[in-house]
């Protein structure tokens, strides 16, 4: 089995893994310091009858040092990861040319809307949500005409920015694709965006990573990342029949 | 242990009083949670909040507020009286405070009954009620009435609960301590401590009255 992080399949993955390794190294230093220190002291200073401990109440300089070092490290770490954080989730971090996909989560299904040739997602209205129209797609909207609505499947073109418009119908769900290192809670009442670039064509899984009820563990969807050519072919093949989105 | 049991110098406040201050700190956090949620919900609300005075009757509540403030004053007088050793006056003013608090609760209960009759409930507006018609006519913003009801009844309800607790404990003190004459010029901790609580409850109400009724 794989003893390390999952394969990398998005633009964020390498840098996130880099951070993981970096923090692992940073934390390894105090870890070994303490653990080896403990073991060493346990053997070196094990009690001998009639002997006393060394009578001291501390050493200010020493304490200054091991206060300052963590402080500096932590602040530095904070600044570094923040610069990256802003690129991932920052309010205006989403590239302008990002390809929009609608991801609508409900107990316990994922409903995905792909924009079709016009590259625009149709308007969705909560009041339109019904058995026949699970995403509440407003079919009167011109952009909606060519939208592809599919269940528990997400098809993406590789190598171009994707922005997922995340909506939840009932409870909190969470959009999570380990290989992309992307996770975003989907909160009813909020309209949340998450963007990333899927870099490696292949099949992956969306897992719901926020407890959402009885079927939480079953709330799973397949992500298929195609090359742009394959993706266009797939989209043409799945172009909506007239009734897509119900009557 | 209350002094005179010898102890290292702490704050120069006897235990019961200190305990009450500490307790009030937690009460502040409790009401901060309720009021904070109200503020967040109201600012994040979808659209207009109901205009003041449309649903709630400001006049009656204003009088009620006045009543509570008076009871706070009478509490001060009771404490002053007992500090001067005038036990009779202390009894009188304590009784006045109890009456003031009791009236406040009574009027609040009356107000609740009236509101529920008009169709204002914690869940918002009851179907087929007077307020429901006003919402239909557009005199009230239907979108936020649910939040209005939820926050109003929760905050005022829990304040009312606190007032009731205050009245009960004051009545208890009155019957077990004040009447039998257990309070003296030297020993009247109960009056002071319950007074602190009473002033706090009063203060909270003034805030609630402002943000719930007037704004």
């Amino acid at each position, binding site marked *: 089995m*794989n003893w390390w992080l999952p394969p990398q399949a998005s633009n964020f993955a390498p840098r996130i893994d880099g951070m993981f390794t970096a923090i692992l190294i940073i934390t390894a230093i105090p870890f070994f310091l303490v653990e080896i220190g403990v073991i060493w002291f346990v053997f070196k200073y094990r009690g001998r009858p009639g002997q006393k*401990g060394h009578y001291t*109440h501390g*050493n200010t300089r020493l304490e200054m040092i091991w206060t300052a070092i963590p402080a500096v490290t932590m602040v530095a770490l904070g600044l570094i990861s923040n610069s990256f954080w802003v690129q991932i989730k920052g309010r205006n971090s989403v590239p302008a040319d990002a390809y929009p996909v609608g991801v609508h989560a409900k107990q316990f299904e994922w409903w995905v809307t792909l924009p079709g040739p016009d590259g625009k997602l149709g308007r969705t209205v909560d009041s339109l949500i019904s058995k026949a129209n699970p995403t509440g797609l407003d079919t009167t909207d011109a952009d909606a005409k060519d939208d592809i609505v599919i269940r528990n499947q997400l098809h993406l073109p590789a190598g171009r920015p994707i922005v997922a418009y995340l909506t939840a119908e009932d*409870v909190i769900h969470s959009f999570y694709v380990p290989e992309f290192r992307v996770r975003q809670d989907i909160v009813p009442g909020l309209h949340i965006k998450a963007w990333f670039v899927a870099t490696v064509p292949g099949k992956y899984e969306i897992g719901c990573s926020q407890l959402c009820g009885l079927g939480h563990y079953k709330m799973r969807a397949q992500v298929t990342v195609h090359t742009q050519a394959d993706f266009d072919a797939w989209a043409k093949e799945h172009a909506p029949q007239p009734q897509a989105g119900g009557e | *242990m209350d002094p005179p049991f010898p102890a290292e110098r702490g704050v120069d406040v006897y235990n019961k009083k200190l305990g009450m201050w500490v307790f009030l700190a937690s009460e502040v*956090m409790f009401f901060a949670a309720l009021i904070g949620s109200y503020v967040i919900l109201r600012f994040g609300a979808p659209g207009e909040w109901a205009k003041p005075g449309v649903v709630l009757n400001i006049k009656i509540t204003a009088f009620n507020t006045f009543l509570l403030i008076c009871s706070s004053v009478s509490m001060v007088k009771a404490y002053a009286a007992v500090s001067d050793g005038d036990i009779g006056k202390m009894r009188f003013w304590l009784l006045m405070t109890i009456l003031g608090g009791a009236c406040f609760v009574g009027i609040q209960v009356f107000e609740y009954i009236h509101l529920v009759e008009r169709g204002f409930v914690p869940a918002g507006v009851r179907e087929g009620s007077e307020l429901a018609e006003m919402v239909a006519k557009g005199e009230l913003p239907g979108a936020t009435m649910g939040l209005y009801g939820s926050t109003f009844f929760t905050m005022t309800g829990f304040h009312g609960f606190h007032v009731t607790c205050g009245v009960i404990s004051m009545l208890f003190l009155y019957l077990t301590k004040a009447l039998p004459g257990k309070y003296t010029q030297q020993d009247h901790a109960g009056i002071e401590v319950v007074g602190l609580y009473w002033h706090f409850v009063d203060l909270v109400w003034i805030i609630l009255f402002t943000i719930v009724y007037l704004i």
Partner: protein
Amino acid sequence: MTTVAASPHTGHAHHDDRSFVSKYIFSTDHKIIGIQFLFLSLFFLLVGGILAMQIRWQLGFPGKPMPGGGILPQTMAPGGVILPEYYLQLVTMHGTFMVFFAIMLLLVGVYANFIIPLKLGAHDMAFPRINMASFWSAFVSGILMLSSLFVADGAPRAGWTMYVPLSARHDYSGVGFGQELWSISIIFFGLSSVLGSLNYITTVINNRAPGMTWFRMPLSVWALFITAVLGLLAVPVLAGAAIMLLFEQVLGTHFFDPSAGGQVLLWQHLFWFFGHPEVYILILPAMGLVSELIANGSRKPIFGYHSMVFAIVGIAFLSWIVWGHHMFVSGMNPTLGSSFMVTTLLIAVPTAIKVFNWLSTMWRGNLRFHTPMLHAIGFVTMFTIGGLSGIFMAATPLDMFIHDTYFIVAHIHYVLFGGSLFAIFGSIVFWFPKMFGRMMNEAWGKVHFWLTFIFFNTTFFPMHMIGMAGHMRRLYDPTIYEFLRPVQPLNVFISVNAFLLFAVQIIFFVNFWWSLFKGEKASQNPWEDNGLEWTLPNPAPHGNWETPPTVYRGPYEFSAPGVTEDYLPQNRKLPTDREPALSPAGH
């Protein structure tokens, strides 16, 4: 409520003529109340453990009938096969019981009650009757929480964090009355916690024995004092939130209902505003207790006493401004995320100070490896891992990947089990003689420590790995996911070790009960410690002191020069000591 505060307590150790009921059941004696809390919380520790075992069975062997599961009703586990609804109840109640009723009561309920007056040289708590009320409301709260497992449709299923709307709407979760019981129970719990806290705070401020200045207070008391402040201010917020949740369920309010303008994230903000101080409520007292054990076991003054105190205060302060780090991926404004990340990372600083100070306390000591010391060392080593793994999830981009995975589960168990629970085991052994007048069996105590230490690591360390593989939390059956099938063997390994970990706890329980009746009689100061409690007979009498002790020095004067023994009780007067200035009577 204030009227209850009246305390007609006469601190006379001799002629204790109270009836059995007033002595052991509705007792106002802080020591008895502490012991009542001990039995209550150990019971819930056991319950929480049993629930955990069932969780591990399902994760290790999904869908297989659980041995002995046949006794469970059809609605939980037909034929011993755990149902998803029961699994979610297990997950929820394990968290709830362990956090609120096991760890928190063990630390704040047991040790704050038992230790504070003894270590400060007070007759009792400032408000003994409020103290009793605190225990009994905790008791009611616990019973209510437990009963939720037995009502129709069972206990809540929204996880111990009770995220709305899942917890607020029965049709989403499928829960019935059990959900309301959670809220009601938590309200009682809040009451208990506030009553306790105001008692501890008042006692520490006003009831210290002559000479027990602030900086002569033992670190355990310092930690418990700061913890009480946190509890006092944090728990009411939870109570407020629980009340809103309750009203949402029974009155149909709309606080958290987006369709009526309510806000889902409001719950998370309220919960974690309480929840993060709560996390430190669960670890600060453990740190304090461990400081006692380490100093005693090393026969050395604690290294950097003042910085230890300031570290506690610093952690407590920071705990108020870090709650957002539970919500990095919750849809909260990412800019907030940035600031919460920085504050969170800063917590590493005071934590590091404490760890290094413990380490340096052992340095050039004369170490005695009695069971409490072993547990204390276990605490330092394991807590270090837990603390460091926290840095991973504090870094927001990385948290986006490991949030809500088993990496988090591993982290919290390294802190709460590897940290708090080791400290608790050590403290139980350490103060057992003062509580019951007998020693716990050392040999079995050491066996219990080593087996626990080993199986603890084999159980929880692999969780980091399955977390790195992306294993989400609260999954009924991980094998549904292709990317999790490879780690299933690790899940089996974890489960087996978890069972062993649970099994070795039996040693502790047996040792506990056996020593209670058959343990060897303890001498007055079996650990040769400096604390005031050890100047009292075992078990300490009602009212503790006939004449209050006078304190001449700090609590960690081990191996002091010019003294024949390697310890020096706080109240032993040396020729050089001056009498402390007494506060004017009735100040």
